[in-house]
C-alpha cells in the first residue's frame, strides 16, 4: 500500500470532479475501485488537473494515469504549459 503524501490540490480536484468525499481519496483510488472514475470522469480529471496545475500531459501517458498516485507522479513530471500551447 502507498503511504505517499498526496498534494492537497490534487485531492481537492479529484474530490470535486468525481464528487467524492476528500477523506476517502488515497493514492490507490483508481477506476477499478471508484465507480465515478469512468472514461468520462478520466477525461474530466485530466483536463481539470491540467488547468489547476498548469501542466500538460503527454498523449501516451493519459490512458496510463489510472490511479491518484500515478496522477501525482505525472503532474510532477510535466512542466507548466507553454503560453501559446
Amino acid at each position, binding site marked *: 500500500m502507498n503511504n505517499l503524501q498526496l498534494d492537497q490540490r490534487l485531492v481537492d480536484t479529484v474530490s470535486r470532479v468525481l464528487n467524492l468525499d476528500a477523506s476517502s481519496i488515497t493514492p490507490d483510488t483508481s477506476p477499478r475501485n471508484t465507480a465515478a472514475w469512468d*472514461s*468520462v470522469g478520466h*477525461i*474530466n480529471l485530466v483536463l481539470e488537473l*491540467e*488547468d489547476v496545475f498548469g501542466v500538460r500531459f503527454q*498523449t501516451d501517458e*493519459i490512458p496510463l494515469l489510472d490511479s491518484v498516485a500515478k496522477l501525482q507522479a505525472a503532474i510532477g513530471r510535466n512542466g507548466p504549459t507553454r503560453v501559446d500551447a
Partner: protein
Amino acid sequence: MTELRVALLASCTIEVFERPFAAALRQRGFAPSFWISGFGQYQQDILDAGSGLYTHDPNVVVLYLDGEDLFRELLKNPLAQLADAHRTHAERAAAELRSLVETVSTRLPKATVIVNTTAVPPLNALTGLEYNSEYGVQDAVNEYNRELAAFASGSAGVVVIDAAGLAASIGFERWRDARMWYLARLRHSRLALEALAERYASTIAARLGRLKKCIALDLDNTLWGGIIGEDGFEGIRLGEEGIGLAFAEFQEELLSLYRKGVLLALCSKNNPQDALQVIRDHPSMRLREEHFAAVRINWEDKASNLRALAEELNIGLDSFVFLDDNPVERTWVRQSAPEVTVPEWPADPVEYKSALLRLASEHFLKLGITAEDRKRGEVYQAQAARRKLESSGSSLEEFYRALEMRVRIGRANPFTIPRIAQLTQKTNQFNLTTRRYTEAEIRASSEDAHTEVFWLELNDRFGSSGIVGVLILKEDVGGAWTVDTFLLSCRVMGRTVENAFLAAVVREVGVNRLLGEFLPTAKNAPVKDLYERLGFERLGGPEDDRLWTLADAATRLEIPPWFEITIDPEDVRAGTTES
C-alpha cells in the same frame, strides 16, 4: 432554482460537455438533469419514438453537429470533387438536419431545440486554393450554415448557436485538442468546452427571459476620458482619434444595445449641468439625452442612486448591470446593492468595447428583436410625459379620459407569439399566476382547441406602448373557463386596462362561468385583490385569496367608458405600429 431537463446529442463525444454545461446552468439559477445520447447515435435516438430522448421529456434538446463530422468525406479528399458536388453534399446534410429537428419538434412540441453553425479547420489542404480556384470547401460549409439559419428562423422552437463564430473568436487552434480527438473522439479542448457551456447556458437563459434589462453607466472615464468637472469640456478625451475614439466607439456599442431594446441609465457623481452639457453639445458623443431612460447625476452614493433608478424604471435591481471605471465604486455597489451585477472592468479604455461585447453575449443575449424592443427607448420617454400629466392634479377619471387610450386585442399568431412569450417570462408585478412560457409552448397553447391566448396592445395620446398584456384562458370539461395567465406590463398598471382587457376577452370568447387563480409571489402583491375588485367571489374560505369565481362573466364584467376597443381578426399583424 428552476428545474431544467436537457438532452444532449452530438456527432462526436459529448458526455464530457455535461460537467461544464451543468455548472454554467446552475450559475444561472437552473437545476439541470441530463439525458445523453450514445456515441454516434443521434439519428437513431431521434428517429426511434421509444428512445430515452423522448422518455426524458426534455425542455431543451442540444443537437451538436461538428463540421469535421458533417464534412468528413469532403475533407478527406478535398481535391476529388468540385463546387457543385460540395453544394449537393451541404444541401443533403442540411436537409437531413431539418428532417431530424422536425421529428424532434413534432414529438416534443414544447421543447427548444438548439442547433449550431459549423466550421472546418481554416488551415487545411486547400489553403491557397480556397477562393482562388475551383477547389474549396468553404462554399459547402457556408451553404449548410445558410440553410440552417433559414430553417431555424421559420421555426419558433429552434435556436441557432454560432459555434463557428465562437471557435473563430477563440481561435481554431485553441478550439481543438488533438490529444482528445485521438484518445476519445472529443472535438473540443477544455477552453472550447467552457466557452460552449457559457454560450449554451446564456442562450437558454435568454430563451427563458432571464436577461438583464438595463445598463447603468458612470460618466467620467467610462463614457469619456477624464473628469468633466476638472478637465472641462475641451479637456475630456472624446473624439475621432486615439483614446478619444476608443470612448466614442464604446458609446457606439452601447447605442447598438439601445437599439436592441436594452435600457441605458446614468449613475454619475457630477454637477448635472457639467455632465449634461457634454451629453447635449459635445460633437463626438454618440449617446444623447434621449438614449437614457433615466438619470441620476448628483453627489449621493451610487447604491442609493441605483435603487432610485430601479424604482423610477419600475424594474428590479437584479435587472441591472453597472459599469464604472472606478474599482472603489464597483466594490461599494457590490456590497451595498448585491442584486446588481457589477462586472470587473478593464483599466485600459481600448478594451472597453470588447469587454462590453463579452458581457452583452452573456447578459443581453437577444435571440430576436420584437417591435417593442426597437421602440423601448422612445417608450420610456413617453412614460415620463405621462407621469407629468398624472401629477398635474386632475381627477383619476379625467386623467384616464385625457390619455385617450385605445386598446387592441387579438388572438396569438406567429407575429405576436415571441412578444407574448417574452412577457410571460419577464412580468412579475401585475402577474396573477407567474407561469413562464417559451415561444414553443405559447404556439402549442394557441393551437389547442380548449385554450385561448390573447394579447393586448395599448395606444394613447403619447404613443404606442406596444403589446403589453397577455390573457390565457383554459376551458374545462364543464364549459367553465379558468384564467391560466393574466398579466400586464408594469408600464400600464394603474389605468384600469385590466378591466377593459378581461371584459373584452370574455365577451369575445363567450364566457359564462369564469374562475380566477392568484398564486402569490414575492413581487405580485399589487394584484392580490384584483379579482375582488373586479367583482369575483372567493371559492375558498374568507381568508383564502387563491381561487375566485364569477358567474355570467360576459355580462357582469364592464369595459370602462374611457377606452376605445378594437378586436383584431386573426390574420392581421399586430404590434407593428411603426408610425
